């Protein structure tokens, strides 16, 4: 059901991502001008708000942590051919579970936190069971069911928080649960900022994911299934099983994102928590070309943009929604494979680049410690 382009992509992955980020920032600059402000000043405020001080950097790390979990969730699913459009709902359900256990469960510190991680994973997985079962038993494409279940999750969590588990003293924009106990809070690495243990954990998980995809049979099966189910099946891969594993892993990671969000940052769950998490996760995964290691810098970029958006609203009086516009424009161009009217230019530039590269001898440099996975997945569905 896709428009298939049989030509090799004219625009390479790196150029594509660079160009889409540049276009996104350009669209943002136009929006700033429409709003009657100075784009240069706006982008300076954005940069300072993201990385300009120790405090800004720590806050960017804090915001980036749940985003890395969610983006890895999307990337793993996408590589295995499962489009998890239900990350938002899986996250919401897990956030409630973490908050509830964090308030009620009496366990010694370390054990309690371990339980919270397991509970978040389980909650995320449970929320994805219906779409998984529908795909396996009825061959229903997962896109719409996972997406529509986000609305169901939001309504369910709203009901649970408002009717069953409301903190009458909590004064946010929406209703929230009571604060979780001290023992349920993740240890901080950069106090007083809420950069927590979850950050090294997700970095480690990303490294493991990169290794599995690049070096193991499991990863090979995942890649083949994601690229072409008939081809993978012809090659003897149980594609249905691989697909289920990819979707389940994705849902569990989406659930895990709730641990740094609730137990590491907010200390409670609220109705409609981090409403843009899924789109942000998709954009991070796309910028990173669905490469687990690339997700780390990509998440820092996006988290910085978001934190800085708040600074923009306060310091420059430009609405926070500018960041949504920039992110939307980046995603719009993130998967292009051809240059349209600019095609002759791109082809010429490429030819010059290739000729230049073949004239120079390969410079003897240190081999990177972590092998870079092949840059695939972005365009294959």
């Amino acid at each position: 059901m896709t428009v298939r382009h049989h030509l090799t992509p004219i625009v390479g992955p790196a150029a594509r991502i660079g160009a889409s980020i540049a276009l996104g920032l350009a669209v943002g600059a136009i929006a700033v001008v429409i709003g009657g402000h100075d784009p240069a000043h706006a982008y300076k405020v954005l940069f300072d708000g993201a990385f300009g001080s120790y405090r800004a950097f720590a806050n960017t790390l804090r915001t980036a942590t749940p985003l890395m979990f969610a983006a890895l969730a999307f990337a793993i699913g996408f590589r295995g051919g499962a489009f998890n459009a239900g990350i938002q709902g899986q996250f919401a359900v897990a956030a409630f579970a973490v908050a509830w256990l964090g308030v009620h469960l009496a366990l010694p510190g370390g054990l309690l936190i371990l339980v919270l991680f397991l509970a978040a994973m389980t909650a995320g997985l449970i929320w994805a069971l219906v779409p998984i079962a529908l795909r396996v038993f009825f061959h229903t494409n997962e896109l719409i069911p996972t997406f529509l279940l986000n609305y169901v999750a939001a309504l369910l969590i709203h009901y649970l928080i408002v009717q069953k588990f409301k903190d009458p003293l909590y004064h946010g924009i929406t209703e929230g649960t009571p604060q979780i106990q001290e023992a349920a809070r993740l240890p901080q690495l950069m106090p007083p900022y809420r950069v927590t243990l979850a950050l090294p954990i997700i970095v480690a998980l990303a490294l493991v994911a990169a290794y599995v995809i690049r070096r193991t049979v499991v990863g090979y099966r995942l890649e083949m299934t994601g690229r072409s189910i008939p081809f993978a099946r012809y090659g003897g891969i149980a594609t249905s099983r691989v697909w289920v594993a990819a979707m389940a892993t994705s849902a569990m990671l989406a659930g895990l994102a709730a641990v740094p969000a609730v137990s590491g940052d907010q200390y409670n769950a609220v109705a409609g928590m981090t409403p843009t998490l899924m789109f942000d996760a998709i954009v991070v995964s796309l910028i990173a070309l669905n490469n687990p290691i690339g997700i780390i810098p990509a998440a820092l970029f996006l988290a910085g943009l978001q934190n800085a958006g708040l600074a923009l609203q306060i310091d420059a009086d430009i609405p926070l929604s500018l960041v949504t516009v920039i992110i939307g424009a980046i995603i719009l161009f993130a998967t292009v494979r051809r240059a349209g009217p600019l095609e002759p230019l791109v082809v010429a530039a490429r030819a010059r680049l290739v000729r230049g590269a073949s004239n120079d001898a390969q410079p003897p440099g240190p081999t990177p410690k972590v092998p870079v996975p092949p840059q695939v997945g972005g365009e294959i569905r």
Partner: protein
Amino acid sequence: MFADILAAGLRFSTTINVAALGGSFTQKVGIWNVALEGLILSSAFSAVWISYTSGNAWLGLAGGAATGLAVALILAFVVVTLGADEIIAGLAVNLLASGATKYLLPIAFGGFQGAVVSEDIVPLPEMHVPGLDSVPLVGEPLNDHSPVVYGGLLLVPLVTFVLYRTGFGLAVRAVGDAPEAARAAGIHADRIRYAAFGLSGIFCGIAGAQLSLGFLSLFSQDMTSGVGYIAFAAVVFGDGYPPLVFLGAIVFGFAQAAVIQLGNTLTIPAEFISMVPYVVAIIALVVLSYRRRAHRLQPA
């Protein structure tokens, strides 16, 4: 009670139906157009803005359709000409529409934050169908709605005719079913894809104007709240065949209306009743995909 559900159901169904009929063109041309939501939202915004500034609801309707067309053509450029992934680009359009309408709202309507409710927004007039009131029970609730409601019903046979009885419709379906064969037969596949995107934009534009000027007369942030995805579910449910798409739209629309009307009288919490349309949409998809599977082997 019954009359209220009927009237509200017809109004809800109209937005879904008109947008979904637009989505039928892209569905038949072989593209998953998930951008219906963003197309509806952006045109709902511009329709309200034009009605607010010009005082003419019909101009608002036309402006909504033009906005839908423009946004859809941008999407078509990115998907068809630049070869982007249609689902990712479609989601991006939805995000852009959400962000841009929020960003532009205080700029376009000085002084308003989050929502525009004003006497200056001129709604589409109610249309009185002569003689309809004399039909017992259903006549009165079905009468006196915006013209788009009745126009939307006429679009069902019209789109069916265009898709199945005209050369253009044949070209659309040919490109969707077998792009290579269509190209061999001398059809410009990319032009047909552009046309399908453009039509889906115009239809969603009308649906958006109906939402903000016919059904309500206001604009609020993210006011579509998933109606475009419901419409897309109707498209997938009917696989772009207008009568079936219409059936899906009616089911979803009336489920939503029943939810709102019954919400006050039942003891079930409102949240659970609000889940019904989403659950109905998922069940409908399952029934469809299972049936289709039973009839013929799906390409994997």
